[in-house]
């Protein structure tokens, strides 16, 4: 069964540093997303991406965040200057059209110290 692959599985970074989280969505999917989940809390939407541009973003997704699909297979989330409150599990997801659910990756656990 096709999978969404995320790397790294765990990233520890110092406050103020830049991090890039990487994702390989399912190859024939057209819609890509990033979500995050702070420990013990709900899964929260960050951003959706379609046709090489952001289609929607949440209030969380401020100027410190950016997304890119650099080469037609990878989908990245960059946090420019990490804060302690950015510590969370970040999930990449992709979807096609139709009556199907979204496929999520296993996540990257980001710890900002």
């Amino acid at each position, binding site marked *: 069964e096709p999978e*969404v692959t995320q790397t790294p599985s765990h990233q520890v970074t110092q406050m103020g540093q830049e991090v890039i989280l990487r994702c390989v969505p399912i190859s024939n999917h057209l819609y890509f997303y990033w979500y995050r989940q702070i420990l013990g809390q709900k899964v929260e*939407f960050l951003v959706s991406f379609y046709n090489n541009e952001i289609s*929607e973003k*949440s209030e969380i997704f401020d100027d410190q965040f950016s997304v890119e699909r650099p080469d037609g297979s990878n989908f990245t989330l960059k946090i420019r200057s990490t804060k302690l409150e950015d510590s969370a599990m970040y999930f990449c997801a992709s979807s096609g*059209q139709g009556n199907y*659910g979204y*496929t999520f990756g296993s996540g990257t656990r980001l710890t900002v110290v």
Partner: protein
Amino acid sequence: SQKIEQNSEALNIQEGKTATLTCNYTNYSPAYLQWYRQDPGRGPVFLLLIRENEKEKRKERLKVTFDTTLKQSLFHITASQPADSATYLCALVRGSSNTGKLIFGQGTTLQVKP
């Protein structure tokens, strides 16, 4: 803003019984509602999707109902097994197609005892 509520208390049931989980929502009329399973430290895994014009959907031991008047979805697992123990998430899809932002509930943890 949209609000989705699931029973925050864990649901403990005996193996072989039917588990019923509830999802209530306010301030929105979603075109689609999805159910996911999440295991600790893992990403959500899609289980079932139901459209606003469907009352019920089934897949093996799973059944979802969708009552747009009550603004409620029920998720049933029949003949439950210990392997069904996990957190189950309800999610609404914003927009008219099944490609928009997902808004998740906080999830209900199910524990199936042998």
